[in-house]
């Protein structure tokens, strides 16, 4: 179980004031649940995900994972404690091959057929990819799928995805939904997914709406989704825009 207690995060603002990105958030994430976090851009979603992984450190508040206070643990220690993190914009490396990255994620004992299996699960033909560098020769969509394969390979109790749908094509998106459903059905992983996509929100157990650095709403999709969609429709009526949530 993951608990966020009175969590706040500030950064220096324009006029010497502190800008509060996350404001005194209290949240609990039960084991084996799939929670989607949504909300407007700039509302603090990605920052919250990065605070959970330890990439950012909170200004105040505590983070507990399975009853243990992990607030002062660094990224490596949190990774070893059982948290994994998929970046919104995956990182490129010159000279590190897809096979190397998946092996680092899965642990040195992993066998090549397993590496291939992780790639197949994200819709990549392993034979074509294992010896390629994780560099600019890969498209954004390919990198994104490899990023998700590293999370499958890690198979940690908690997996955090920061906008997994960003930069992914339609075919990959279908596949992505299936990956999340499989991870959820296996009951081995708890999932926290930052997303704007209705179809991802649709398969989550619960939805949290984050805006202005605070939790605006939390509930089952049957409670939250109609409300969100209503908001979208009124925007579309007002501006004639084809909007995502």
């Amino acid at each position: 179980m993951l608990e966020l207690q009175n969590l706040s995060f500030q950064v220096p603002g324009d006029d010497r004031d502190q800008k509060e990105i996350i404001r005194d958030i209290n949240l609990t994430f039960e084991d084996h649940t799939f929670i989607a976090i949504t909300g407007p851009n700039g509302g603090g979603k990605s920052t919250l995900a990065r605070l959970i992984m330890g990439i950012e450190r909170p200004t105040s508040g505590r983070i507990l994972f399975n009853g243990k206070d992990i607030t002062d643990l660094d990224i490596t220690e949190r990774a070893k404690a059982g948290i994994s993190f998929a970046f919104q914009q995956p990182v490129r490396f010159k000279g590190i091959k897809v096979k190397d990255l998946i092996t680092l994620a899965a642990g040195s004992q992993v066998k090549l057929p397993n590496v291939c299996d992780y790639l197949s699960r994200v819709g990549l033909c392993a034979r074509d990819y294992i010896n390629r560098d994780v560099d600019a020769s890969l498209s954004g969509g390919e990198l994104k799928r490899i990023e998700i394969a590293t999370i499958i390979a890690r198979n940690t109790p908690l997996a955090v995805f920061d906008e997994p749908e960003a930069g992914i094509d339609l075919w990959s998106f279908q596949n992505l939904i299936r990956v999340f459903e499989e991870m959820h059905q296996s009951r081995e992983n708890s999932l926290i997914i930052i997303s704007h996509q209705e179809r991802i929100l649709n398969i989550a157990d619960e939805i949290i709406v984050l805006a202005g650095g605070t939790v605006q709403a939390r509930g089952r999709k049957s409670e939250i989704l109609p409300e969100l969609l209503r908001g979208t429709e009124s925007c579309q009526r007002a501006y004639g825009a084809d909007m995502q949530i």
Partner: protein
Amino acid sequence: MDEIQKNLLEQVAGLHEMPTGAYNIRADGKSVDRATTAHIDIVSKDDRQGIDIVIKPGTKNESVHIPVVLSESGLTEMVYNDFYVGDDCDVTIVAGCGIHNGGSEDSRHDGVHSFYIGKNSHVKYVEKHYGSGDGKGGRIMNPETVVELGENSFLEMETVQIKGVDSTKRSTSAKLGNGARLIVTEKLMTHGSQTAETSFQVDLDGEGSSANIISRSVARDDSTQMFLSKINGNNRCAGHSECDGIIMDNAKISAVPEITANHLDAQLIHEAAIGKIAGEQITKLMTLGLTEEEAEAQIVNGFLK
């Protein structure tokens, strides 16, 4: 050869024992072992230090090893090795130099390798440089490579200097004939207060000739590196050079590219990027459970692999 020399030999040429094919092993200023084949002859020069390696036309799938090891502190040598590769050959040449200096005087190996490559021949040339020993004396290597590539010939050159060489000045020059190709891959790491300068001068004289110079380097501690490359496009040709450098600690890297098109159909490109390891790369590997130090080592090793 003693154990130190055998270790150097393994580092620079990957040799645990005498290789098959032609070879000449030079240790502490003397040729200690040599073998020739029906197609590859090795002859000592009369007028100066060095050897001529003569590869008969049509020689295929053969190799030549000519490693040099120095373990006597204070030894300085200048060696000239000339390679005459006939037409229609396909051969691998493994050179390399290892210096172990446990004393207080500088040990230095300067070598000039000249290649005369015939028509339609393919040569793979591998050169590794390595230094060891805890003496205060410097381990210095200054390799010069001069290449003349005949019509439709192809030279792949791989140079690696990863550890222990205190000072190096590497110079490579090449003249390419019609349809000739040159690919150079350089991997370089400096540490401590080492200095390394590497320079390329490529003349794309032949119609349809091409060159690709790829340098990847890492400079750590207080070391300094200089990368110079000049590519002259003198005909319808394609030239590309790429310098990628990672700086760490207080190190410095300079890249000075120069491309000159002397012909309307010369296509020349230079790319250079120098910087520290991107923080997000370290962060990504830390999210996989690596420590910051492990992440850094992984990135550097991958970069130079």
